[in-house]
């Protein structure tokens, strides 16, 4: 595991919630009911997206729907604001993490 792949967020509490299966960059993962998409992704890896102008990784910033820096691609081609959308079973999300290695 590289630094980039390491989980960014650390769970401190509320870990007894029901599990929610979802898919992250093609890999089956597990989130917890009540997780935002941002939490679901960043408890597994280190980024949500890449900036369109710099190509640099981003992982959100304000967590309250203001900065617009946490929009995540779904594998169906739509976009979700990760901090204000709750994870749903079966969601398939793309962080752009592989683009750096292509």
């Amino acid at each position, binding site marked *: 595991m590289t630094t980039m792949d390491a989980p960014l*967020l650390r769970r401190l509490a*509320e870990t007894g919630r029901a599990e929610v299966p979802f898919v992250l960059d093609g890999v089956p993962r597990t989130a917890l009911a009540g997780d935002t998409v941002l939490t679901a992704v960043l408890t597994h890896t280190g980024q949500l997206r890449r900036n369109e102008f710099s190509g640099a990784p981003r992982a959100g*910033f304000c967590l*309250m729907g203001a900065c*617009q820096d946490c929009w995540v691609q779904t594998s169906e081609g739509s976009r979700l604001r990760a901090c204000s959308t709750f994870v749903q079973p079966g969601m398939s999300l793309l962080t752009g993490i592989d683009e750096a290695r292509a």
Partner: protein
Amino acid sequence: MTNAPVIVGAGPAGVRAAEALVAHGVRPMLIDEAARAGGQIYRRQPPQFGRSSRTLYGFEAGRAAALHQSFDALRAHVDYRPDSLVWNVQGDQLDVLHGPSQRTQRVAFSQLIVATGATDRVLPVPGWTLPGVYTLGGAQVALKFQGCAIGQRVVFMGTGPLLYLVAYQYAKAGARVVAVLDTARFADQVAALPAMSTQPAVLLKGMYYVGWLRAHGVAIQGGVRPVRVSGDERVSGVAWHDGTRERTLDCDAVGFGYALRSETQLADLLGCRFAYAPAHRAHLPEHDAARRSSVPDVYLAGDGAGIMGADAAEWAGERAALALLADRGVAVDASRAQALEHKLARLTGFRSGLDRAFPFPEDWAGHAPDELVICRCENVTAGTLRQTVRESGADEMNRLKALCRVGMGRCQGRMCGVAAAEVLAHCTGQPVQNVGRLRGQAPIKPIPMQLIVASEGATP
């Protein structure tokens, strides 16, 4: 009047405004972008979480629970619209996007209370776009709303009351807080004591957090100048200047901010007159003591019209509702209205004390290196801003935006607007009030493009 009054924002101001309207027999529509009422300060965790109010809100647990209980009791008496973003205003109509269904609806209002709240005031530091860097408010949301810390070893940096509160909440919840780095000096806080002593409970809470952090071995350093957040694709440390030399610390996450800034886009689209408010170092929509804006039937309450804090927001929300009621011919208790105005006026001295204790770092722009990214949406640097000013002579924010795209990205300058104005002012040798403010534009937050088309097609 055929249309109901509308309140935008279900934080402390919006909930108390709704409560006052309902108490006078009026049923308002209450529109809120969040899934649950409470605003940011009293944000409620998702229903699957079980922590107590005491755990979540600490000393504010009583106030948070009271606000939540008031809202729950009101729920059947208001037309409550959660998950709903007001993204445009045309005349007396709001365009409202319901997030889960992705449908936009046009809502007519007779009168409107704007209680849009605030976000962190950000002054960028090199490396601030790295994964692992969040606003102080964002770091707090991660913990309060999701039970997560933003990293394993966290540094909190910047200034303002939230700096110590969030550090305390993190350490208390079991996170490792490596250091608190405050741009304010200890001398600033001492000098502010007389003004702040008008609100002894608030002052004592602040002192308690600092004392608790020190007692638990958290390093606290005042008088710092943040130099950079280090890291390649992830935070690996911070560097700051302590007045004598540069110092560094290893960490994997940084929470930072410099107090708060008002969310004013909606007031702007409504046509409210703005004025520069030196105490807030910002252009803010004007209002009178009764919270009437310059536009008839539009009222301003809470931190969206100037940062005064959650208690003030509750009072201002109620005061705005009483003004709204009086304007529609409903009899209200004039002595209650006067008492609220008196409480709000008394806070002004305390607020100036807070600014003295946690002063805005006025030398920030002078130290901002050319390669510093100011606009994180479009990756516009301080150097680009300066070059644009040199080449074009631009001396006003909207001109600068048109020329180099700063503030033109998805966040509409919410994150970069304060910093860009400071750089422009410094670069052109003007006081910051002279460079103006970024004008709000619809949609005030990103919405799917096809919704705009559908909505305009529906215009009669």
